[in-house]
């Protein structure tokens, strides 16, 4: 039993690189999208605001797996656009999906900073960009941290879908293992859970830390 558990673990670890690299790249890209889209939601220009809102609602309102299939199967045929390898498609689909959710965190955190902060910054004659950069964003960032921690864990779990577009991640190797060792199926999937959980541990720790920073951040 113990032997086969270790055996499975080493088999699954072939997919570790794909899962982790996908997770890191998708998270980074999702953060960037979240900030750009979050800031676009609060600019004056109604065109930019409207377009960003369309993107956010579209990607929040449809499922990630369907978006993944669209990018992988539909768009190349319909528009003859090739987004690159399936690794890139996985990264882009996950980042667009979670970026949409996280942009709402960025937007609401910025709006949650006390209005008096903006007024004081105006009274000191800081420019719009300076106000955002030196006064509002640093405070909003602390409010974002706990939610960002949560979403990074969600992204990690979301990467498990990419086996459906042919990427060889942890779940993919779990499936292969089960199909060749049917009797060990439950154990194989249990070890898949264990692996995801182990990767998530530092993220859980980070979001706890983020919560602490957020709490002491902006009082007074």
């Amino acid at each position, binding site marked *: 039993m113990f032997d086969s558990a270790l055996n499975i673990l080493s088999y699954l670890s072939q997919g570790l690189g794909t899962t982790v690299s996908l997770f890191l790249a998708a998270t980074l890209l999702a953060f960037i999208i979240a900030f750009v889209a979050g800031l676009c939601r609060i600019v004056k220009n109604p065109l930019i605001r409207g377009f960003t809102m369309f993107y956010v609602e579209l990607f929040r309102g449809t499922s990630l797996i369907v978006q993944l299939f669209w990018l992988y199967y539909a768009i190349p045929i319909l528009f003859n656009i090739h987004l690159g390898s399936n690794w890139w498609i996985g990264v882009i689909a996950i980042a667009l999906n979670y970026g949409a959710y996280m942009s709402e965190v960025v937007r609401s955190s910025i709006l949650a900073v006390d209005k008096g902060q903006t007024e*004081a910054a*105006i*009274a*000191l004659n*800081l420019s719009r960009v300076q106000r955002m950069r*030196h006064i509002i964003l640093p*405070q909003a960032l602390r409010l974002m941290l706990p939610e960002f921690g949560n979403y990074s864990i969600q992204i990690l779990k979301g990467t498990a879908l990419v086996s459906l577009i042919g990427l060889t991640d942890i779940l993919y190797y779990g499936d292969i293992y089960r199909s060749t060792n049917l009797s060990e199926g439950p154990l194989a999937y249990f070890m898949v859970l264990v692996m995801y959980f182990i990767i998530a541990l530092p993220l859980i720790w980070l979001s706890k830390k983020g919560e602490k920073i957020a709490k002491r951040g902006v009082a007074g």
Partner: protein
Amino acid sequence: MKPIVQYKEIHKSFGDTHVLKGINLDINPTEKLAIIGPSGSGKTTIIRLLMTLEEPSDGDIIVDGTNLWKIEAGGKEKKANEKHLSKVRNDIGMVFQHFNLFPHKTILENCVVPLVNVRKMNKKEAAELAENMLERVGLGDKYDSYPSQLSGGQKQRVAMARALVMKPKIMLFDEVTSALDPELVGEVLEVIRDLAEHEDMAMVLVTHEMDFALEIADRVLFLDEGVIAEEGTADEVINKSDNPRLQDFLKRFRGETVTGQ
């Protein structure tokens, strides 16, 4: 003396509420002006318009000869853009009822940020200037504290230092003592008194501190229902006016103070 600020037929509405109903007011370059009146009379709105935190619904505000909210473009009057507002704003500073210090910065950084970003000073110069000003308001030993570590009175003194380092020609004080515990009011008024005595800038105080207004103000305005209902020297307005609304306001105010003690 040419006024540094002129309000000309200023109106301001928030939705259906007509807060200011035609304010005409000249403020002289060294004048210490106090604005009193019941809450909701529009006192705070008057100075918020000057600080560009609100836009007037009608009328003009002239600051040092420049129309604050309007610019000429191709012979036509247009709404002022951010660049224009920023230029005029350079001469104006404001202290708020709720301090509005930047909580993520030390009190020294609170003062340094505008000097470096707006006045384009280098960090060392800025820090020196900020330290001197904090010293002046009695906080020379608190440079590295964060606002959350200070008392309300100390926070308000930092807020004043932060506005003062910018060397404004006009300083606005928006009920700066109303959020303070009674025992902390004195230390803040002390700083304002020092400024009133030693600085040439124009000062506009929206205040509930009637005795203090009487002591330092060259002129007092009584604002009532969006108009200037009475104005004159502090003595004239507070002791000699027979305006019944003002009498009523003062009576209620003094009554509250007495029962409050």
